């Protein structure tokens, strides 16, 4: 049977050996770190963005590289997923973009600060994280789902304007693709005329007080393009 001194030797020996291996692997990890994390892209903006991220304890709700509080979405690939302009609009007033949903603090970032946060998240998204997060691997069509008539795609001759695919699709779906916070827009062109859609986009609150639709920062041309596109969705 094991004696007390043998037990002690097991404890001390094991601790020493595995600590040594751990330190060795740490040195090697640090050696590879610059390449794996694209350290050459750590610009001034990225570093400022990290400071803003930490100063406001964003990880107290969000997760990043899977670490955080699980209360708000993981932001590892958010720039790839949502695009820069959407995040830029979102940060101005998060609750307006997800009305009635889980709340996020409105931080009143300046244009510059928003750019820095986005730069930081963009850099994080490009870290070699051994393939994480993995792509969903259960195909949706392997599961029985009710086919909604509204998602039937209609032939649209006008192509989707850039701003539409950056902002609108976060909440609205067209042809089954997009968010489900707002109604699907598949047949919006047959419901409303161009003039109404135009006035609606200028300020939704004027047309329908209390609506969940936020007032989006669109230039005249961008708005015109979107109205043309929406009118074609018959």
């Amino acid at each position, binding site marked *: 049977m094991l004696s007390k001194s043998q037990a002690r030797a097991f404890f001390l020996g094991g601790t020493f050996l595995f600590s040594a291996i751990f330190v060795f692997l740490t040195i090697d990890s640090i050696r590879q770190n610059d390449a794996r994390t694209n350290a050459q892209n750590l610009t001034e903006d990225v570093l400022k963005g990290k400071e803003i991220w930490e100063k*406001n304890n964003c990880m107290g709700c969000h997760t990043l590289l899977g670490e955080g509080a699980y209360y708000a979405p993981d932001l590892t690939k958010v720039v790839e997923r949502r695009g820069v302009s959407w995040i830029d609009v979102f940060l101005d007033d998060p609750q307006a973009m997800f009305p009635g949903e889980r709340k996020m603090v409105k931080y009143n970032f300046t244009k510059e600060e928003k750019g820095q946060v986005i730069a930081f998240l963009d850099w994080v998204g490009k870290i070699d994280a051994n393939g994480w997060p993995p792509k969903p691997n259960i195909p949706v069509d392997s599961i029985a789902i009710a086919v909604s008539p509204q998602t039937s795609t209609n032939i649209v001759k006008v192509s989707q304007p850039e701003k539409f695919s950056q902002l609108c699709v976060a909440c609205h779906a067209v042809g089954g693709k997009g968010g489900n916070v707002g109604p699907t827009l598949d047949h919006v062109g047959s419901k409303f005329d161009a003039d109404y859609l135009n006035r609606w986009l200028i300020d939704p609150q004027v047309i329908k007080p209390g609506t969940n639709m936020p007032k989006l920062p669109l230039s005249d041309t961008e708005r015109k393009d979107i109205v043309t596109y929406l009118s074609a969705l018959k």
Partner: protein
Amino acid sequence: MRFQSQKVAYWFFATCMLLLSLQIVYGFIMGFARIGMDGLHDYIPFNTARATHTNLLVVWLLTGFMGAAYYIIPEESDRELYSVKLAYIQLISWVVVGVIAIVGFHFNWWEGRKFLEIPRPLDYLVVVNVLTFLFNIAMTIWEAKKRSTTQLVLFFGLLCAALLYLPGMIYFDNQTLDSYFRWWVVHLWVEGVWELIMGGILAFLLIKLTGVDREVIEKWLYVVVGLTFLSGILGTGHHYYWIGTPKYWLMVGGIFSALEPLAFLGMAIWALNMYRKKGKDHPNKIALYWTLGSAIMSFIGAGFLGFAHTWPAVNQWTHGTLVTAMHGHLAFWGAYAMLVLAVISYAMPNMTGRKLFTGMSGYLAFWASNVGMLGMTGALAVAGITQVYLERKLGMDFLVVQKEIVFHFIGMLLAATLFTVGITYFIVDFIRHGLPSNEALGKNVGDLD
């Protein structure tokens, strides 16, 4: 209580009770926010509640460890504490730093690194404080005539916990390195040196409560903490799978995490075996419940539930979901919270001379809080697994999935209520014991050693 200076432990335990109550309050704020009732959003947003909830946990457990050390070390060293005055100064400054940190969180003053949110200037104060504590303990041991393994393992654990706080204070520009060294603190604490502290405290309690020969208990203490370090040090790798570190961590982390339950299994077998070998019954059954309960629950929560999602092929889906929160709750409860409650249950009758363990409320406290915690863990488990399937495997939107699991959070809140009932019983008993008194000096209720 053998020595007058052990009384200082009472004030650490009382602080524990206060901080634990606050932690529960913040837990409820988060639970309600998750079912859409976040009326406090403008005053206490979720990130504030979250930072407060987890930091209070860390602080109350550390306070409990300090109290346990102040109680155990004099008895193991067979002499008074080196300086009672220093212990009080240390407690007061510890509480002051804690209060400033918690209040600061409500004014956006923090470091924004999960579990290590305390701002840098306060970190330095924590270091000074912990060094004061260690100095006091070290001098007590140094000037003692008696050396015991329990005493040394406990001290070594506390010392390493203090040293490992330092890597968390280095600033890194690079998120990957930042995260890498943050785990040196967080993982190597809870799955490393805290287990050493746990082993030391458990050994002390087993010696007192079962009366089994010290040599036997301490031999197994070495084996258990040996297993802890054997698996736990390289087990840190399970935090390094997806943060930008080399691929070999998948293998290293996977294998050694799979071994981690062994340490906890060892702990449970050890405690139960010592109980089986006991000479006669110790009258303080409640303390025994918490002691054995801690050994068993730590195996389920920290060992088994940890094992359930640290294998890389599983972890790639569960990483960053409520599955982690599920494991976290039962792990901390079983391994550390129950252990601190065990020390308090054992020490209170000795310090005050009041044998409240004969009543019913101690059992109610034990069962209500344990069933409540298992309920919370179950609710989080169902929510977490649902989240993994809908969000990760099927690719549904985060917020849509969160709405699907609201129901489980109602279940969690109900279980949390039962848990709170249990803790309330515990705290009421704590208060009923009254203050430590000199009349209790020299007699330990029913000790078998």
